[in-house]
C-alpha cells in the first residue's frame, strides 16, 4: 500500500466516501497532492531528525558536568569537614600547653601567700580554739552523782 493510498484510505478520497468530512469536501482537490507531499516531507524530516539524534555520538556532557559539579561539592564538603576536625584538634592541642604553662605560674603565685600566711595564722588559730573550748566547756557532773545524792537523802531520813 502506497503512502497516497494510506491517506486516501483514511480521508475517504477513494475507497471510503462515507468517511469524507465536511471540511475535506470544502477543500480544493489540488490540495490533496500538496497534502500528500507535505505529509511525505513531514515524515522524511521526522525520520532524518530522529536518525540524526539517535546516531549522534553520545557525549556525556550533561552527565560529566553533573558529575563534576557533584565532585566539586564533595570536595568542598570534605575540605570543610577536614578543616573543622583539624581546627578542633588544633584548638584542643593549643589549649593544653597554654593551660600547662599557666598552671605553674598560678601555683607559684599562690604558694608564697600561703607560706606567708601560715606562721601568722597558727597562734591565732590556737588562741581561737582555746577560747572556744573554754566558752563551750562546762563542768559536767559525774554519771553517778545524782544517784549518789538520792542515796544520801534516803540515809538521812
Amino acid at each position: 500500500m502506497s503512502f497516497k493510498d494510506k491517506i486516501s484510505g483514511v480521508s475517504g478520497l477513494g475507497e471510503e466516501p462515507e468517511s469524507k468530512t465536511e471540511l475535506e469536501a470544502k477543500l480544493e482537490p489540488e490540495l490533496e497532492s500538496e497534502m500528500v507531499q507535505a505529509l511525505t516531507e513531514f515524515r522524511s524530516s521526522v525520520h532524518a531528525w530522529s536518525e540524526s539524534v539517535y546516531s549522534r555520538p553520545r557525549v556525556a556532557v550533561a552527565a560529566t558536568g553533573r558529575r563534576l559539579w557533584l565532585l566539586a561539592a564533595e570536595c568542598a564538603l570534605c575540605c570543610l569537614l577536614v578543616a573543622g576536625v583539624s581546627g578542633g584538634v588544633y584548638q584542643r592541642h593549643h589549649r593544653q600547653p597554654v593551660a600547662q604553662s599557666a598552671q605553674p605560674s598560678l601555683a607559684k603565685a599562690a604558694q608564697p601567700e600561703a607560706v606567708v600566711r601560715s606562721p601568722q595564722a597558727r597562734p591565732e588559730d590556737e588562741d581561737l580554739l582555746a577560747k572556744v573550748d573554754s566558752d563551750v566547756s562546762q563542768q559536767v557532773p559525774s554519771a553517778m552523782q545524782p544517784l549518789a545524792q538520792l542515796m544520801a537523802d534516803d540515809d538521812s531520813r
Partner: protein
Amino acid sequence: MAAGILEAMTMATADQIAAEEFSAVVTRHRPQIFRYLLASTRDVDLAETLTQECLLKAHRNWKSFRGDSSAMTWLLRIAINLQKDHWRNRRLQFWRKTQANAVELDDASDWLPSGERSAEQQMMARERVAQVAKAVEGLSERQRTVFLLRYVEEMELREIARSTGLNEGTVKAHLSRALGRVRAELGGRR
C-alpha cells in the same frame, strides 16, 4: 536430584534464549520507538528517557509477552502508556520542561533531506513541514498519537488500534480529524 539439576539447566537455557530474543527485539525496534516518542514530544532528552523506561518495562515483562501482536506493537503500546502517564502525572512540570527543551517548529523542518531540489523548493518544503508540525502540535493527545503512528511510522490501522487500545473505527475518526486539522493548516497558508 538429577531431575532438579535438569530443570535448573532448562530454566537457565530458557532465560538465556529469552534474553537473546529480547536483545534482538531491542536492537531492531529501539530506533522506531525513539522516533515515535521524539516526534510526539519534540524533546530529545524526554524521548530518550521514555525510550529507556519503555525498554526497561518491556524487559521486566518480556516473559509475559505472548506474541498475540507483533513485538513492535507491544513495545509501542508500552511507550504510549508511559507517555500518557508522564503527561498525567507531571502535566505542569512536563509542559514547562517541554516548553524549555522542545525544538522549535522551524528547527524541526531543518531536518528535511535536501535531495535534488532547488533552493526555492527546499524553502517551500520546509514551510510545509513547519505547517504540518504546527498542526500536529495543536492536535489532541490521541489524535497526535494516531496521526504519527499512521503517517510517520506507517502502521496499519489494525496495528494502530492494537497499540493504542482503541477500536479501528475510533482510530479512523481520530485520523480523519487530524487530517482535517492538517489540511486546514495547509489551506490557511495559501
